């Protein structure tokens, strides 16, 4: 694998290109790959069954990186790679990551398609909380039995002050890491791995937040949309690598952006994963395809996004060592049936596609209105039931998703949901009555579809 300093060097010396030209070139190249195969949703499959498509997507992604590189927005230059360097990175990125310490150490690993073993879990946060409840929230999420690592929350005020500038950002970043460590201790898991979530991507802020992390902890270093990287995050990668931290990237793609539609987003997600491995040495990736309409909570979207996500996961799980996570990002907030059904869909997909579970938040969060522990526990419950009940095969799982789409989600619109304080009792680590009843109802309906919950 190329060293991060080599990446930094190439970002200074690669060919210059205007960002707008890069964006349009990305679209044109991806469109070319789509037309050539052709890559097209067949109108039926929830899970891809075309094995040749996976080879084609992977080879096209390698072809793109070799011909175009990865764009560095700091220098306005392309970081170029030889083909053998790309393929070596695909092989050398580790299939497992050891995280945490002592009795709380975990091995987080790449999953198989149609997995037979329980999936790994990061139950939160990645969503905003008011600082007065953060310690309690962290403890609650850490208490979830299957948690492998816990990501930090974000927040806008700290110690009675708004986080407005670099000194405050640094202070807030350090608070985040210390709250995470304290929260996992309070949950009786002092060695549980924590993942630093950037309060701000400024290099100084990132380093302040990583300063207290141990070697079993990690940092979120995401490749930017449209296959772009930048120097603050590269700086953070250099620092975190020497500290021994693992790195996670949001390598999903958004249909409707410069990659084009869902077919184009398949390519972008694979490209971003390669870019994360090459440029930041990211080891864990939440991948897949979303749509700008669902991310704006305009509608709950299913096909062809389900199919497109399956192509991404299958490609990465069979052609690289990348450790993938499904990104459960429902368009509705907590304490809504839409949210629980959307989480169920992602849990089913996780098992069949080979994606560990990542439950950060819903699409339009607000302070304390992003998530509760129940959604992550529900993800685990459904995914375990999928394996136990034999629904972890593409055809059977596809029929289940079809039923959820037509019987449960059809006609529903995204709704805002409730804050964690409104629907969840953090003192008792349980949902409040309204949410408990809703969960019981959805759970019963899910089991009536054949899952042994």
């Amino acid at each position: 694998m190329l060293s991060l300093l080599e990446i930094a060097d190439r970002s200074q010396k690669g060919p210059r290109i205007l960002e707008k030209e890069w964006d349009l070139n990305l679209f044109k190249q991806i469109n070319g790959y789509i037309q050539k195969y052709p890559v097209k949703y067949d109108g039926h499959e929830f899970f891809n069954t075309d094995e040749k498509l996976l080879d084609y997507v992977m080879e096209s992604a390698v072809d793109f990186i070799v011909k175009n590189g990865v764009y560095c927005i700091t220098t306005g230059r392309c970081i170029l790679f030889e083909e053998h360097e790309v393929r070596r990175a695909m092989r050398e990125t580790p299939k497992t990551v050891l995280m945490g310490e002592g009795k709380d150490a975990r091995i987080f690993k790449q999953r198989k398609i149609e997995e037979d073993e329980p999936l790994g879990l990061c139950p939160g946060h990645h969503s905003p909380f008011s600082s007065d409840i953060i310690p309690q929230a962290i403890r609650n999420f850490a208490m979830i039995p299957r948690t492998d690592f816990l990501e930090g929350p974000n927040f806008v005020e700290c110690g009675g002050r708004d986080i407005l500038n670099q000194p405050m950002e640094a202070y807030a970043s350090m608070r985040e890491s210390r709250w995470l460590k304290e929260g996992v201790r309070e949950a009786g898991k002092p060695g549980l791995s924590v993942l630093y979530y950037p309060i701000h991507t400024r290099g100084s802020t990132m380093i302040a937040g990583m300063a207290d992390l141990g070697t079993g902890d990690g940092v979120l270093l995401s490749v930017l949309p449209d296959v772009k990287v930048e120097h603050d995050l590269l700086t953070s990668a250099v620092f975190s690598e020497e500290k021994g931290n693992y790195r996670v990237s949001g390598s999903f793609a958004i249909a409707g952006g410069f990659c084009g539609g869902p077919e184009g987003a398949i390519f972008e997600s694979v490209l971003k994963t390669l870019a994360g491995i090459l440029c930041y040495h990211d080891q864990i990736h939440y991948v897949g395809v979303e749509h700008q309409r669902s991310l704006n909570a305009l509608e709950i979207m299913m096909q062809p996004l389900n199919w497109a996500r399956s192509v991404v996961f299958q490609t990465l799980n069979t052609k690289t060592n990348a450790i993938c996570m499904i990104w459960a990002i429902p368009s509705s907030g907590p304490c809504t049936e839409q949210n629980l059904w959307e989480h169920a869909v992602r849990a089913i997909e996780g098992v069949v596609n080979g994606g560990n579970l990542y439950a950060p938040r819903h699409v339009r969060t607000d302070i304390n209105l992003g998530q509760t522990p129940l959604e992550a526990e529900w993800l685990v419950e459904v995914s375990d039931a999928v394996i136990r009940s034999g629904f972890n095969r593409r055809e059977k799982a596809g029929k289940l998703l079809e039923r959820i789409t037509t019987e449960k989600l059809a006609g529903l619109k995204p709704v805002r949901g409730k804050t964690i304080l409104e629907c969840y009792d953090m003192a008792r680590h349980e949902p409040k009555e309204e949410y408990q009843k809703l969960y019981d109802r959805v759970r019963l309906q899910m089991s009536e579809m054949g899952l042994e919950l």
Partner: protein
Amino acid sequence: MLTQNEIFKELCDAIRSFDEGNVKKAAEAAVEKKADLMKAIKEMSDTLAEIGEQFHRGELFLPHLVMAGEAMDVATKVFEGHLSKEEMSKSKHGTVVIGSVEGDLHDIGLNIVAMRLRTSGFEVHNLGKDVPVNRFVEKAQQVGADIIGASALLTVTRSKHKDLVDEVRQRNLPFKVMVGGGPVTREYAQQIGADGYGEDAEEAVAEAMRIMDEKGRGK
């Protein structure tokens, strides 16, 4: 020899095909024929609006909006020397300076809003990502903007929206400020004193139209 309407049809077809070469040819033909260039601009704007609707329905994507906008810019550049400043400004709903606030590197939503405003008839100056308050203001002053639009996707960066609103108010600047982005809500926008808020691209366009309409009525 093509008629005016035939030339305009070629112009609009070329925009639909994102063919800048043919756009330029048709625009030059319109000038040579001494066609009604304001009508040409109106028809091109309608074509752009149609493309915007196709995007909204999910039939086209962001690159198509960009390419259509660039194709229309080719024609507008050809027309510039043949229309007065007043005529050119009449052809727009208003001028918007837009960007992601300082510290925010996300721009998909921003680019979509910028292009939807563009295809809806606004002159748009997209400053891109990580834009400090003073740069928003400088650009707005430079181009005589009506509206400054600011996007934030990180909860912590949305505080820069307030900085922008405060700067505009304290200096008594003539711009309206619109805000948006994932963690931004209507309540938050009202709380910080923003003039407008868009939950998504379509609402942003409607809000910008409303602001310009009120401006026209002297509010």
